Structure formats: structure tokens, C-alpha cells
């Protein structure tokens, strides 16, 4: 492979001689910093544009702002960047599991711009998924530039992701955990160190450039054992809300696709609706970090009923923004919905009991956040670590874990596939390392095929064939056309045993009279999964592979087992 040669000729520094771990750590730092920068850039740009647009929010036509943003965003994404992908995270997971983390260069900036347009103008979405996509694309392209192999590239994609999350939240641990729990799906030694370092690099960049961190300025909370019971109730509630949120997101997307509007019209309608909701509930607009901030610090003032409605307003606004052409993620909306849920629950508790001995509103907002993140993404650890880093202490950890566990279990029970994985699972592309599906997708038909077969002509007389059997150890004989070499059928020794032992018919039949013509065949384009399914449902031991009427070879179950086992060893072994 000349790839390797290129690598050495291109780089006098000769990275290939560097120790694998050191190489990953160094490139990981670069990836983490770059994606951290991307995250910071988006954050700062969003803050700037929110401030700039703030005076216009009071006019009646303000509802058009999100519409304009959504139109620009969708036109940019479809016509200029021609990105053609969903909200980002599933694509990254797909690339990691199917194509060794290969991502396009354009993904490293396209989402930043489109989500800036969407969120900056007031669309209800989060900047995290776009940043994750750019971060991972940055990592992937660094690896591409250095001609690294798939394993190293995947790690760098993880580094980029971690740097991006760490950069946008200033939360390195959450970045590490998110990257491994959601994107890579594999905890192993060679991954964790570079990703952890990349996460720290991303957070450092964020701290150096953003002086006023909004969310994560370490607030102390007093959450005692008395909060466990209300916490459990909150978790159940949050679980339900997150299931509702996921369902709404999915149905809105499908609903929007039913209309054959041009793209920009769809975005215009969606944006106006969101803007309309925003006129009554400004809390739904944008990524909402400032509202979350005020909820945590307890300066948020909304009545019980209004809070309840706001939860659903935000859910619908987010679903419409994302489903009707806007661009962005669900991370920030999850946080906002979660804190609204927490506060609503806190208010209920205070309504029912007089002077209950439970913690402040802010603490419940945090618990709600954990509940929503764990529920929607089904990533309990990410939820726990993110909120831990907000509080900067361990006082809340017990209720956090309880809430996170219950909420994720509940939503898993009702909706087994999380929002990020749903599409992938539906397409059969959810391929975590070491799983059956992954091994089958890695193994190629062309790798399994055994090609050394004696072919026989359909016009051969049976006696001649008997002579061939005597000296051959094949169990299967493909029968082909004499002139064109086209595949006609198979002869399986097992099936013709009684004729073989009957010399009387040796000169009576030709091979095309005893061959099996209705035996199922596979082609090189089939996935191994399809082939195995075919073998299992028809109780076959081997399948002939035929392509363009030419016999290529056979695939046998013994061969599959042999390679399957090796592949399993390779994928699961600790390196």
C-alpha cells in the first residue's frame, strides 16, 4: 500500500516512528485545542449576536427573526455547503463505527455557520451538536492529513468531540465522558488518555478566551438526604418529559417531510412559529444559557402554571426548529427543559407541603437537567458529570445518581433507542465495537470467499464427473456453460450420493440433469449479515457467490466462524 510510503515521504519528521501513545497524545492536544477554539468561536459569536439583536426583540415583527435565520441557515446548509446531513451526532457515530472515523472537511465548519444563523436569530436549538460535529471533523481531518490508521483516527475523532464539549461548557470531565459514552462507545486504555488530555486542552482554551463563563462558575448547593424521595419523583417526571421530548422531535421531523414545500418555505414557516412562541415565552429562544444560569442561581421568576407551559413551549419550539429546517443540537434545550422541569417540580412540592425541608430551587433545576440529559440521550454518566462540574462539588452526587439512573431506565424502558442512536438502529448501522453487527459489517464477503473450485461443464457426462470426484476433495461443484463460463447450477456431492453409487446411470445423464439450479446464491455486494440470514433461514452450510452470472467462489459457515472469532479477538482485546 502506497499510503504508508506517502506518509514517510511527506513528513520528514516521520511520525510513524513515534510511539503510538505519544503520537495520539500530541495530535490529541492539537485536535482538542482546535475544536475548543471552534466551540469558543461559536459561543462568543452567539453572545455577540444575541446582544446585538436584543433591542429588536420587543417589536411585533420580532417573530420573523428566527424565520430569517432558519431560512438562511437551511439555504446555506443545502445549497452552499451542500452538507446534506441531520443534526450531526448520529453522522459522527456512523462514521466512527462504519468508516473508521472518516469525516468530510466541510463538516468542520458548515455546522458552525448554520447553527450560528439558527440559534443567533432565536431558533430554539443547542450549539453543542454542531460543535461536536466540527470538533470530530477537525480531529478526523488532522488524522487524514497525517495518514493515520483507522484506530488512531477514531481516537482523534473522540479527542475532537471531547475538546468541543469541554470548550463550550468549560467542563473537561463531561467532554471526556460524552466522547466515550456517546461517540466511541468503547472504554479502553489507548483511548482514554488522549481524549482526557484533549478535553483539558479544550477547556483551557475556553477559560483563556471566555472570561465570563456563564454556566459553570461553581455554585455550592446543600442537598441532603431529605431530597432523595422528592428526587425520585422528579426523576420519574423527568423521564416522562424526556420520552415526550424525543417523540415530539421525531414526529415533527416526519411531519415536516410530508409537505412538498421548497426548503426555504419550510424553514420560513418553522422559524415564524418558533418566533411566535418566543413572543410569549422568550425563554424558548436561542440556546438559553442565560435562563439556565438564572434558574440555577434561583433568580428565575415564573409562576407555577407558566413554568409548566414553558416546558412544553420549549419542547415544541425545539422540535419545530430542528424538524423544519433549522440546524442545531438538543443538548442545550435538554438542559433548559430539565431546569424548567426541576423548578416546576420544586414549586409543586412547596405547594403541597408547607415548609418542606428540601433544597433550593436551583438544586432542583440541576436535578431536572440530569434527568433530562440521562433520559433523552440515555447517557447517564454524561448527565452526572456535566452537572457535577456545574456545582463543582460532591454535595449533590447522591441525588444526581439516583435521578440519572431512574430517568434513563425509565426512558429506556419506554423507548429503547436514544435520540442519537434511533436513526442508526433503524438502518442497522448502530455498530459498537465488539458487537456482532460490527464484526459482520467489518468482515467482507470477498475476504471470506474460497475461490479454488474446479468448475464442470453442464454438458459433461456423469461418468467423466465420477472420475473428477475421485481425485478431488471438493464437496461442491459449480456447473458452468461451456462457452460463456456462465454459472448454471451447483452439484453438491451430498445430494447425488445415491447416483454416484449406481454405475448403471454413469453414461445416461449429463450434469445439467442432476445439478441443483434453485440453490440460492449471494453476490459480492451483499453484506455478510444478509448472507448469514439467508444461510440460516434455508439451513445451508455453504452459499455459492455468483456475480454477473459468473461463479466466484463459495462461502462456508466454517470459514465464517474462523474469521469471526479472529475479528472478535481483534476488536475486543485490550491494547
Amino acid at each position, binding site marked *: *500500500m*502506497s*499510503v*504508508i*510510503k506517502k*506518509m*514517510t515521504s511527506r513528513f520528514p519528521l*516521520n511520525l*510513524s*516512528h513515534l510511539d503510538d501513545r505519544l503520537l495520539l497524545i500530541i495530535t490529541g492536544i492539537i485536535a482538542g485545542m482546535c475544536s475548543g477554539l471552534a466551540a469558543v468561536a461559536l459561543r462568543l459569536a452567539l453572545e455577540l449576536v444575541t446582544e446585538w439583536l436584543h433591542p429588536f426583540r420587543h417589536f411585533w415583527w420580532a417573530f420573523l427573526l428566527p424565520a430569517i435565520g432558519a431560512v438562511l441557515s437551511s439555504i446555506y446548509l443545502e445549497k452552499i455547503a451542500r452538507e446534506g446531513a441531520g443534526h450531526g451526532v448520529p453522522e459522527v457515530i456512523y462514521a466512527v463505527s462504519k468508516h*473508521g472515523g472518516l469525516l468530510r472537511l466541510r463538516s468542520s465548519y458548515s455546522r458552525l455557520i448554520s447553527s450560528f444563523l439558527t440559534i443567533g436569530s432565536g431558533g430554539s436549538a443547542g450549539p453543542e451538536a454542531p460543535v461536536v460535529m466540527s470538533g470530530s471533523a477537525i480531529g478526523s481531518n488532522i488524522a487524514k492529513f497525517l495518514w*493515520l*490508521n*483507522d*484506530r*488512531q483516527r477514531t481516537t482523534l475523532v473522540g479527542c475532537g468531540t471531547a475538546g468541543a464539549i469541554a470548550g463550550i461548557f468549560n467542563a473537561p470531565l463531561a467532554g471526556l465522558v460524552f466522547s466515550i459514552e456517546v461517540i466511541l462507545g468503547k472504554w479502553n486504555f489507548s483511548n482514554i488518555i488522549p481524549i482526557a488530555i484533549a478535553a483539558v486542552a479544550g477547556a483551557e482554551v475556553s477559560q483563556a478566551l471566555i472570561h465570563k463563563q456563564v454556566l459553570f462558575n461553581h455554585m455550592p448547593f446543600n442537598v441532603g438526604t431529605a431530597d432523595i424521595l422528592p428526587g425520585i419523583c422528579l426523576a420519574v417526571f423527568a423521564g416522562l418529559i424526556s420520552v415526550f421530548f424525543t417523540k415530539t422531535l421525531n414526529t415533527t421531523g416526519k411531519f415536516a417531510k410530508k409537505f412538498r414545500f421548497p426548503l426555504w418555505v419550510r424553514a420560513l414557516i418553522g422559524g415564524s412559529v418558533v418566533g411566535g412562541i418566543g413572543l410569549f415565552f422568550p425563554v424558548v429562544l436561542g440556546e438559553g444559557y442565560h435562563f439556565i444560569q438564572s434558574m440555577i442561581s434561583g433568580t428565575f421568576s415564573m409562576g407555577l402554571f407558566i413554568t409548566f407551559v414553558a416546558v412544553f413551549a420549549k419542547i415544541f419550539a425545539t422540535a419545530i426548529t430542528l424538524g423544519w429546517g433549522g440546524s442545531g443540537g438538543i443538548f442545550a434545550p435538554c438542559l433548559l427543559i430539565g431546569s424548567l422541569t426541576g423548578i416546576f417540580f420544586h414549586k409543586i412540592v412547596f405547594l403541597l407541603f408547607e415548609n418542606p425541608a428540601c433544597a433550593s430551587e436551583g438544586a432542583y433545576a440541576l436535578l431536572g437537567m440530569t434527568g433530562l440529559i440521562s433520559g433523552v440521550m440515555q447517557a447517564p454518566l454524561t448527565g452526572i458529570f456535566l452537572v457535577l462540574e456545574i456545582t463543582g462539588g460532591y454535595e449533590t452526587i447522591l441525588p444526581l445518581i439516583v435521578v440519572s439512573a431512574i430517568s434513563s431506565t425509565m426512558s429506556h424502558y419506554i423507548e429503547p433507542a436514544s435520540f442519537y442512536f434511533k436513526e442508526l438502529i433503524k438502518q442497522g448501522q448502530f455498530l459498537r465495537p465488539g458487537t456482532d453487527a460490527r464484526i459482520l459489517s*467489518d468482515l*467482507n464477503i*470477498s*475476504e*471470506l*470467499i474460497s475461490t479454488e473450485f474446479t468448475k464442470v461443464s453442464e454438458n459433461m457426462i456423469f461418468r467423466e464427473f465420477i*472420475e473428477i470426484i*475421485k*481425485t478431488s476433495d471438493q464437496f461442491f461443484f459449480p456447473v458452468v456453460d461451456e462457452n460463456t463460463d456462465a454459472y448454471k447450477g451447483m452439484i453438491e456431492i451430498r445430494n447425488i450420493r445415491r447416483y454416484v453409487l449406481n454405475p448403471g446411470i454413469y453414461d445416461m445423464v449429463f450434469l445439467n440433469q442432476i445439478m441443483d439450479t434453485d440453490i440460492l446464491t449471494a453476490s459480492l455486494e451483499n453484506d455478510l449479515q444478509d448472507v448469514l440470514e439467508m444461510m440460516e433461514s434455508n439451513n445451508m452450510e455453504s452459499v455459492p457467490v455468483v456475480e454477473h452470472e459468473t461463479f466466484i467462489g463459495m462461502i462456508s459457515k466454517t470459514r465464517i466462524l*474462523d*474469521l469471526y472469532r*479472529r475479528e472478535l*479477538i*481483534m476488536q475486543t*482485546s485490550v*491494547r
Partner: protein
Amino acid sequence: MGKHMTLSVSDLSTCLGVSTDTITRWVRQGKLPVLPKGNDLRFLKKDLEKWAALHNIRLNLSDKKSGEKQNQADIRLSQALQNGGMYCDIAGNDIPTVLEACVNRILQIPDDFKSDLLDRLAERENALSTGVGNGIALPHPRQPLSYLPHPMITVNFLANPVDYNALDGRPVSILFCILCPSLQYHLHLLSALSFCLRDTDFISFLKSQPEMDQLLEKTVILQESIPL
């Protein structure tokens, strides 16, 4: 086998028993230790051994056993006859004495093993006679004789025909002793020999007590038509 011996993709694919496509995929995915130099992919043997041990994968480096196994059965009948040699005028009146006389005269059997071999031959005869008819018997032990350097068939012409409990009841005057270091040879030689013994011309030729050279010449011609 130098310390810095390298392997190519096709070498490694035979070692591991996977296709070259699989090897290049593993390299692409970063699962195999590969040398970063050169136009083609090369693998350092030392690295591969480390890697195989780490993953608990069998690496059949420099192991030619599988190749030998294939060739094992490929000994020609004439070669075995030549290895064995021919012995005339074997004395004896019944099976045990004939066998004893045979065994004692076979040069290739070390003296320490002669009594053991005799026991085994007799045991085999007691189980079922090896007289195949037409005055011919094929005495052989049921276990392989690991001390033999190569498989052999000795031709023994008896001084007097002996009643051998043969299938057709006729007395036996020619013994073919089949002595093999492994079972594969045994089956192969037995089948080749019995194929030849189906030929009536060959049997009458044998009855004439031919010289070794003549016999070899005849078997070389005959074994060409043996299927297998």
C-alpha cells in the same frame, strides 16, 4: 530466521489463514503492527509474534507441518517395495512360524523390536486373516511403527504354501508385509497394493517369483492407473 526477518502480505495471509484483503484491512484499521517503510507492506516477525501472543492468535510462522501432511500419503507403491526389499524361500509350516521367519529376515527392523512386531502381526492375524485370496496375504500390524524411517512393503516368497485361513481358502505362498511409520501411509499403500492385486496378470507374474527389478518395473506401470 533472523531477528529482523520481515514478511509480506501474502506470507502473512498464509500464516494466519486469512485472505490478503483481510490483512490490508487490518493494517488500515490499525490492528496489525506494520513496518512504515517501503512501497509494499512489510511486517517484522518479532512484532508479529508479540502481537499474536497479545491477542492469543496462532501464528503458523515457519511451520510447514500442514504441507507435509498433504504429501505424506504421496508415497508410490514402487518406492515402498524398493524400501522393503524381497525375500525368498521363507521357511515355516503355519502362520506363526512363517511370520517369525519373515520378521527375522527383514533387515530394516532393529533387533529389539522384532519380537514386538511379531506379536503385533500375530495379533492382527488372529483378529482376521489377511489372506486376500489367490495365494497372497498382506500381514501388517494395526499400529504404526514409529521407529521406521520410511514406509515399506517387503515381498516374501514362501518355501512351502501355508494354510492361511484366506478368504478363498487357498494356501498362501506370497506375503506382502506392510510396515509404516504412520497410518496415512498404511491406508494409501494398502489401497494401492490391493488395486494391483486385482489384476490377474500381475498375480500370475508374481507366482513366477520375479526378480526385484522386474517386479518394480511392473508395479511402476501398474500404479500409473491407480485412481487417487
